[in-house]
């Protein structure tokens, strides 16, 4: 069983003015000039390589960190690398105001917890805070207090997360049916 409650330090992805950074597309997350890279362990160092103010993210991020992102995160192309580069850095989960439709599929299919939290940027969180996310209830706690209620993960998402990824899920009894 994978953990249902995740604890980690957050990165609140803001723009130069400290505001919510919306519409970060897959080319900003993982630029197309690196698309030839297929080995996931190579991808981490290019994460956010084209997102202004966040180019040094790969050096700052630590295993187990959690991303908190703005609206329409991951808009654009269907490249899986835009998800895998964060997995390569050990990012544990992505919490976002909203996501591009294909990006969302790719995160979920890769077995990474994705939490939809419209309004999370108004909750007072800042980069460096340590939070606890309950994947089943959507509750987000800081200092033991509930500071935000996000959408709980759906059953489907949970099943894929528990199995490891979409392909692993396909091996399970329920996946095969």
């Amino acid at each position, binding site marked *: 069983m994978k953990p249902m409650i995740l604890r980690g330090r957050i990165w609140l992805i803001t723009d130069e003015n400290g505001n919510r950074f919306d519409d970060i597309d897959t080319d900003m997350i993982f630029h197309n000039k690196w698309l030839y890279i297929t080995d996931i362990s190579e991808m981490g160092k290019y994460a956010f390589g084209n997102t202004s103010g966040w180019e040094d993210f790969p050096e700052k991020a630590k295993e187990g960190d959690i991303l908190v992102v703005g609206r329409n995160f991951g808009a654009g192309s*269907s490249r*899986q690398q835009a998800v895998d580069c964060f997995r390569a850095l050990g990012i544990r989960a992505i919490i976002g105001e909203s996501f591009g*439709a*294909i990006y*969302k*599929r*790719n995160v*979920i*299919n890769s077995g990474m917890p994705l939490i939809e939290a419209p309004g999370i940027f108004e909750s007072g969180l800042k980069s460096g805070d340590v939070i606890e996310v309950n994947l089943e209830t959507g509750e987000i706690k800081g200092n033991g207090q509930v500071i935000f209620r996000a959408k709980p993960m*759906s*059953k*489907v*998402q949970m099943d*894929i997360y528990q199995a490891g990824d*979409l*392909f692993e899920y*396909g*091996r399970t009894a329920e*996946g*095969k*049916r």
Partner: protein
Amino acid sequence: MSTIVERIFAEHSKGRVEPGEIIWLDLDVRTARDFGGPNVVKHLKEHYEGDYLENPEKTYFTFDLSVPAKTIKYAINQQICRRFAKETGMKVFDVDAGIGTHVLLEKGIVRPGSTAVGTDSHYNILGAIGAFGQGMGDKDIAFAFKTGRTWFEVPETMKINVEGDYKWPATARDLTFAVMGELGSSGMLGKAAEYYGDAIDRLSLDGRVTLASQTTEMGGIIAFIPPNKEVLSFVEERTGEPVKGVYADKDAQYSEEIDIDVNGLEPLMGTPPKPTNVKPVSELEGMEIDSVFIGSCTNGRYEDMLAAAKVLKGNRVKEGVNLRITPATKEVWLRVIKEGLVDTFIDAGAVVLTNPGCGGCAEGMPGLVGENEVELSTTNRNYPGKQGPGKIYLVSPAVGAASAIKGYLTTPEEVVK
């Protein structure tokens, strides 16, 4: 209470079907093209040991991008798919068949209410007969091949009413431009849509295909055109079985409602760099052009061929302009030959009538656009670089044919009185 997408999903899943819920969706049909197909095979082989297909009878390869293979890479990729098909018993619509989604319609493989997925971002074209079609990446499609299902978030549905009367030379393509101009590139973002209104009811099946083929360019998941009698009898003839449409309940919940008036519609066009950058043809009339392409999943059907032939008959393409025509499928191609349209095309000086498929729409086939070339095209996208370094203006087949004759952008009345 339910919209069309909600009704189709309810019939193909166990979960609660409400916008925002994620459900497991049973798939009636799953396909991969020569683009994407080889990766689907690779994922299946990498992740599973045999038993690759939940049901080979419901699983197809459809080759349409590079047909027959233009480069060695395409040839190798198609061969990977053919081998895999032989091994697993799934079917291949090979390089002679035409555009995959159109083949599914013609062969009666999908019907109103079907669920289908494939590696083609215009798979939602199946909304033309009221089926649910969705394009996906190669990992998603590999999983669909293996399990016969996919997870999906139930989208909200918007209602689009299109009313009004128009006559030739305005066509279904111009109605489609009118809708795109109104909604813009994100007007349907993440949503399902349903089309209603007298202008929609009057659309032929081919016209419905044109309208449905531009859903993706407005950001839509799927746009349904509720089937009328003509569409139902087409599907019945193709499936050899009685067929019912899936319609929305009277009290279905829509996220919004949009009214579009197409009364007295005139020929429109999609100007670079976005297909939703819609302008009247009359505004740019006289613009010199170098080439014209008629075909693609948007305007490669028989009705489109006929519209072009009507304009070309007895006329000649202007010297220096090259007009290329590619029917969408083998069925359309044969009809074009049998009914003499091909003679009209050749007599008029149309440069090529290429093998059925995507034609110059994608990089896989002959018919690309060179530096500084101005092309009028009946395809669905004019993003920079998609068909080469030239500039692409999207138009209807009738406008394309008339302009090819004149050598500059014009409307068909200038050629056919």
